[in-house]
């Protein structure tokens, strides 16, 4: 009578890694003026190879708004591990970033996935608070975790 309870448990743990490391991305300094088809790259600090990308933020358009807000369309944030492997990919058709308060939000769709694509989370409407590293997805949250048989904990 082995229930597969911990498959979800295992997934949550991996997802947390994805979230904690990847969702910091929108709060990273990015373009602050009007721009189209932009890309902003952040590199690892020394002593790591300083040409090693830590994250890459891209978008189709950014539009500054009063109050320190920045609208980013077709947001795509990629994060990388220290060895250059993809760690997480975050996509949002539109996102408003509050530069003063360090918050990113949208009423639209949000997609997160691990670098290998085996963990995927999506939902509608989100708020990311940089100060306490807190992400809320407000509606229709769907998480998919793919685990190979070798990862089965047998539970």
């Amino acid at each position: 009578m082995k229930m597969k309870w911990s498959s979800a448990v295992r997934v949550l743990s991996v997802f947390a890694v994805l979230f904690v490391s990847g969702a910091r991305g929108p709060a990273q300094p990015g373009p602050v003026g009007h721009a189209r088809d932009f890309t902003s790259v952040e590199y690892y600090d020394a002593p790591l190879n300083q040409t090693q990308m830590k994250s890459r933020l891209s978008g189709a358009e950014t539009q500054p708004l009063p109050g320190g807000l920045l609208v980013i369309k077709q947001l795509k944030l990629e994060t990388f591990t220290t060895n250059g492997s993809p760690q997480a990919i975050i996509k949002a058709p539109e996102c408003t970033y509050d530069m003063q308060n360090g918050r990113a939000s949208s009423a639209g769709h949000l997609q997160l996935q691990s670098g290998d694509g085996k963990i995927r989370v999506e939902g509608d409407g989100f708020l990311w608070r940089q100060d306490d590293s807190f992400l809320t997805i407000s509606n229709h949250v769907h998480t998919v975790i793919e685990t190979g048989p070798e990862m089965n904990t047998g539970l």
Partner: protein
Amino acid sequence: MAVTAGPAARAQSDTNAAPPPPRVTHIDSDSADFDGNGHTVTYCGHVRVSDPAMNLTCARLVADLPEAGGRPSRIVAETNVVIDSTDSKGQTTHVTGDQAVYIYNVQNGVTNETVTLTGNPQPQVKNAQGTMAADVITWDRANNGYRFIGNYHMVSDQNFSVMTDTNLPPANTSNLAAPKINSPASITNNLAAPK
């Protein structure tokens, strides 16, 4: 051309066999909070966890995530918790409770992994042996057994009999509600499937 057979051919065949498909787990909910500082994930509203061997539904699911990563040490499922699972032999188990707390830890090389069901109405476990209920049901996953604490009672689905304690009056079998047994403080029921 000779047809290859035997262990060597089988080994070759195994080598060439396509890898088994990945196991896919889905978690759906109305909303979710991911607390990076508190290291918790909270799914709220119509929570559904499903994979090929297990379905779980509840109103709220909170997982504590170790800061160093790895398997969560504690998961709490709350409100109308229903777990349906199927083991490798195809036997199904239906578990209900108001709250289910999953605990995992390793102490002195010994793995402790339990799911403790509590709440009102009484948690229940229903499988091929029958339906068992108690105030507290602990599913010892490491040892594949159940422990029932407080107001234990069981109704067998196999012979339609009602288990009673001799200290109690004869059971009224026309009453669909199973009588409670003057059970010891706890009852351990190892429900491991026969090999």
